[in-house]
């Protein structure tokens, strides 16, 4: 099984979720994160003093999937989350050894 972890722009979350649902993905987990990257944070002024906000609000999505879905899932995310502007985010994929559904104790593919 694979874990796909994507960092995207927050307002793209619903689009991505819909794209994934369309693929048959049945679950995912979302985290509010802050991103640092090529997209630079603004320089803000507070009470006359400049300071730079290095971190920008992003959303992280984690989706456990079966191996065969990797390609479509990554593609779906990439399409749905893209605006073409800097800061659109990243997708990372890594292997997971096991998955368990807490409610039933099922494990492996069945747990997803």
């Amino acid at each position, binding site marked *: 099984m694979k874990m796909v972890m994507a960092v995207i*722009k*927050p*307002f793209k979350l619903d689009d991505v979720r819909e794209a994934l649902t369309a693929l048959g993905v049945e679950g995912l987990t979302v985290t*509010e994160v802050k*991103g640092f990257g090529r997209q630079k944070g*603004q320089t*803000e*002024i*507070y009470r006359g003093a400049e300071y730079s906000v290095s971190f*920008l*609000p*992003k959303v992280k999505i984690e989706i456990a999937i079966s191996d065969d879905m990797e390609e479509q899932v990554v593609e779906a995310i990439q399409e749905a989350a893209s605006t073409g502007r800097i*800061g659109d985010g990243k997708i990372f994929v890594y292997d997971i050894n096991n998955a368990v559904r807490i409610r039933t104790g099922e494990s492996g593919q069945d747990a997803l």
Partner: protein
Amino acid sequence: MPKYSRIIATSLFAVVFGLIPSVSFAQSTLNGETAFILNTFMFLMAGTLVMWMAAGFSMLEAGLVRAQNTATICLKNIVLYAIAGVMYYLIGYKLMYVDVPEGGFIGSFSLFYNPSAEELALMAAEDGADAAEAAAVYGSSDYSRMSDWFFQMVFVATAASIVSGTVAERIKLWPFLIFVAVLTGFIYPIQGAWSWGTGWLDAMGFSDFAGSTIVHSVGGWAALTGAIILGPRAGKYGADGRIHPFPGANMPLATLGTFILWMGWFGFNGGSVLALGSAKAATAMSVVFVNTNLAAAAGCIVSMIYAALRFGKPDLTVVLNGALAGLVAITAGPDIGNPAIAMLIGAIGGLLSTIAIPLFDKVKIDDVVGALSVHLVAGIWGTLAVAIFSTGDYLAQIAGILAIGVFVSITSSIVWIVLKYTIGIRVDERHERYGLDHAEVGLEAYPDFEIRRAGG
């Protein structure tokens, strides 16, 4: 509105001419100076309560916008209060109250409204030698001139506050403030001259005790035209006709704002008795306080029940709107003798506003805080209610509603459109998504808090 003060004017007249007022001949047995002081102090206390309503609107609106737009709405609300005061001092008050021809349309166009010469002389007088100056002052006016200005000024600010809530979360700061300046300096005062300034609507018998129409609907019409010309918030109305609500970020703040408004309304309606220097005025004020409270209570309760039945849940934001709608509804006639009818008027106000909320959404007029349902819908209802339940005249009431509605809608639209095609009124969509606080104010309202859904 001017009724309760005339009584004192007359008795003051007696004092100036050296007559000692007597129970059997004068309308009020009060010493003229005492009445002058009471009227003046009342204006100041009531005005302070109405000033406090500016904070109420701020908190209500700060609670009902998203976190990413909260600092902006705070900034708008405090600055609009400041602008309202300055504009009304510069030009507005005189347009509304000074030298309005009987049955006329507009007051004086001259600048500044200052203490009278008599008052300045009194203030400058030596403590041991000011009797004549004092008599000149309280003999010629029922109250200190600037106390009345203060009380009228805070009303203008209220009208402006109403607008900010409806057009929140998408309008640019500076054009909004320019609109406020025009509204408080010109649009509000001119229509105000027609009624409270003793112009043509007053002559017709239009009756709007504390301003269901003259203050609240005026704010409502200005907000309505703004909402239409500005368009809804990005993403509010889906292509499929679905509505995507943006829940307000801070419910206790919205609740606080409503309590502040409820409190301030005692000054708003109570102070509109315009006098305290007679038993009649004091009695009327008591009745006004009670009616104001019961109408709000009824609006609150009815909207809760309606929301629970119709929407399935007693949505807090709707209940807050319902209480305010009760207040707006009773504002045109809070001196009605029967508090049970005040309750009824408030209840219907609350009901109508709750019904109106989804209707505005249906026609895609995006009103962030429900100001149209509360101030426009319940304001119209309250003005009609004076004809239904009280001494108001149907024709005059309808004439007032229509005339003011048409005038404010047209003039507001002109200002909005001019702003739209010159400096622009709408922040660009990326900024809207990212939050107006970043784009317009350059800071976050809640920087230490992890915020959901803030765009990037």
